[in-house]
C-alpha cells in the first residue's frame, strides 16, 4: 500500500483540566478501511472532530499527503478532501434526496440574468450515484424522511464520495440500524474503499468492524491501545481491548460468550 492520505501523530486535546485525548496516533491509506474502535467515552468523538477540523488539537501533528497542515474550520478539512458523515446530522428528512445530496453545492444553469438549480442534472446524478452504491430509488424527489436509516447513510456517503472525498470518516454509521440495513451499509463501505478512498470507520461493534476493516485501532481513555492488521487479531481480543479487558471477560464467561 501507498503512503498514508492522512496521518495524525500523537494528538492531544485538553478541555480545561480534562484530558480528552492523551496522545493518539492514527493514519489512513488510500483504499483501506481503518476501523477506530472504542467504548463510549473513549475519546472517539473528540478524535474525529479533531480530524474533521471542528476541534484544534492541543498538541500533535496532522499530515496530509506527508505535509503538515492545520485545520481552522470544518471547511478547511473538507477542502483537504476529508469528509465526515455524522450519525444523525447528515440529512434533513423533510427535503428531497436531490436537495440533500446537493445541499450547499447546488448545480446551476443560467436563464438570462438569473441562475436556477439544474434539477435535470441534479436528479440524474443523484440517481446514478445512489445506484452505484447499490440503492435504486423510486425518484430523486422523494423526501429523505421516507428512506430507511441505512439508505440515509448511503445518501450521505454517496454525497461525500461524489464531491471528491479522499478520506471518508463515518461516525457510528451502523449503531442505530437493524441487521439487514447494517449489512447494506457495510457493503457500501466496501464499494467506497474499492474506489481508492480511505475510510475511517468508527464503531463499538467488533463484528461490524471485522466485516470490512483492513486495520483496527482501539482507543481507550484517550489513548491508542495499538493498531492491528486484519488477520492479526481475533474479535475477542479486540473486545477485551475496548472494554479494558478483565471485567468483560468475566461477564462474558457468565453469559456464555454471547457478547
Amino acid at each position, binding site marked *: 500500500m501507498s503512503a498514508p492520505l492522512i496521518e495524525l501523530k500523537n494528538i492531544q486535546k485538553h478541555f480545561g483540566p480534562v484530558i480528552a485525548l492523551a496522545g493518539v496516533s492514527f493514519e489512513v491509506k488510500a483504499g483501506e478501511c481503518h476501523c477506530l474502535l472504542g467504548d463510549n467515552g473513549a475519546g472517539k468523538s473528540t478524535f474525529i472532530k479533531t480530524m474533521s477540523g471542528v476541534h484544534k488539537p492541543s498538541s500533535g501533528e496532522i499530515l496530509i499527503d506527508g505535509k503538515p497542515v492545520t485545520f481552522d474550520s470544518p471547511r478547511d478539512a473538507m477542502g483537504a478532501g476529508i469528509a465526515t458523515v455524522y450519525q444523525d446530522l447528515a440529512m434533513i428528512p*423533510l427535503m428531497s434526496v436531490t436537495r440533500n445530496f446537493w*445541499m450547499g453545492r447546488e448545480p446551476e444553469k443560467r436563464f438570462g440574468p438569473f441562475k436556477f438549480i439544474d434539477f435535470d442534472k441534479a436528479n440524474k446524478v443523484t440517481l446514478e450515484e445512489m445506484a452505484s452504491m447499490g440503492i435504486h430509488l423510486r425518484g430523486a424527489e422523494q423526501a429523505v*424522511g421516507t428512506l430507511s436509516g441505512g*439508505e440515509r447513510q*448511503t445518501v450521505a456517503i454517496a454525497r461525500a464520495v461524489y464531491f471528491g472525498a479522499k478520506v471518508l470518516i463515518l461516525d457510528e454509521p451502523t449503531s442505530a440500524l437493524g441487521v439487514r440495513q447494517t449489512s447494506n451499509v457495510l457493503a457500501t463501505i466496501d464499494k467506497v474503499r474499492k474506489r481508492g478512498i480511505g475510510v475511517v470507520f468508527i464503531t463499538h461493534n467488533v463484528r461490524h468492524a471485522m466485516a470490512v476493516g483492513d486495520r483496527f485501532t482501539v482507543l481507550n481513555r484517550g489513548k491508542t491501545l495499538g493498531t492491528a492488521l486484519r488477520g492479526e487479531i481475533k474479535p475477542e481480543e479486540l473486545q477485551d481491548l475496548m472494554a479494558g479487558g478483565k471485567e468483560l471477560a468475566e461477564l462474558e464467561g457468565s453469559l456464555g460468550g454471547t457478547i
Partner: protein
Amino acid sequence: MTDERIKQVSALRRAMIRPELGATTGTLLVFLFFLLIAGDSGMFSPEGIRNWTVVSAQFAIIAVGACLLMIAGEFDLSVGSMIGFAGVVIAILSVQMGWPVWAAILAAFAICLALGWVNGMLVIKTGLPSFIVTLAFLYILRGLTIWLSILTTRQTIIGGVKDVAQNDWLAFLFGGVVLKDLFAWFADIGLIEKFVAGTRAGQPVVEGVPMLVIWALLLVAFGHVLLTRTKFGNWIFAAGGDAQAARYVGVPVARVKVTMFMFTAFCACVFATCQVIEFGSAAADRGLLKEFEAIICVVIGGALLTGGYGSVIGAALGAIIFGVVQQGLFFSGAESSLFRVFLGTILILAVILNTYIRRMITGER
C-alpha cells in the same frame, strides 16, 4: 435495497405529500361554499370581487415574507408594528418634513431593511428564539410609532399624504391603479356597472387593478421561484430543516436567516406603503395583529411552524382563504364576531393536517 413494505405508494398519498394540498382544497371549498350561500349578495359582483381580492392581496404580501422566514426556521412577530412604523415614517418625512414622496418611501424601505437586519442579527448572535426577539420589537416599534407621531403632529394619525403624493412616480407604483382602459371597456360593454351619482358618475365602479394586487402577484411569483428553483431557496429549506446539518455542508445559515428577516421587513414595508398611499394617511394603530394573520396564512398554506417545509403558493392560497372568508362571512350575513371562531377552527385543522402530512413524509408513526 428499498423496503418492499413501503414501496406501495398510492397516487393519493403522493398527492398529499405536498404542502399546498390542504390550502388548494380549502380554497376550492371556501369558494364553493360562498357561491352557494352568498352567490347573489354582491360578493361576486365586480366590486365584491375587488373587495376580497384586495384584502387577500394584503394578506398575501406579508404572508410571502412570513412564509420564507418560517421555512428558514424563524418567526417575525414585529411585522404588524413595522407596518405601522413604516407608514408613520413615510407620512412624517413627506408631509411634515417636506421630502418628496419617493424619497420618503425609499427611506422607509431602508429603515425597514435595517430593522430586519437588526432582528436577524440579534436572533443569530444571541441564539435566543426569534419569537422573543421579535416580540420585543413588536413593542419597541409600536411604541416608537405612537411617540413619533404624537411628537411631530400631536396626533396618532398623520394625513395629507394624498396631496403630496399626487404625480409622484414611486407613489404610483404602490397606490396606483392599472388597466384602467380595459376596465372602462368592460363598463362600456356592460360587464361592470357605472357610478350613477356624484363627481364620478359614468365611470366604472371598479376602475382597474390596484397596484397592491400586482405587488402581491409579483411577490408570490418571486418567492415561489426563489424557494423552489434556486440555490438560495435550497438553503432556506436547509437552514430551517436542520441548521446544524446545513452548516456541516457549508450552507451560510446565518446569512440566509438574516436575509429572510430583511425580506419579511421588505414585505411589511410594501404593505405599509401601499396602505399609506391608498388612504393618504398613516396611523399608529395600522397593522395591529397583522403578524399573526400572516403566520395564520402561512400555516393554512401548509408550512410547518418548526421550519424546513412549506410553500409560497400555499401561503398565497392561505391568504385567499383568509381574505375570502373574512369578507365573505359579511356578505353571507353572519355575525362578524364569529369570524374569529371560524378562523381559530381553520387554524387548528390546518395544523393537525400539516402535522399529519409531516409524519407521512418523515415516516414517523
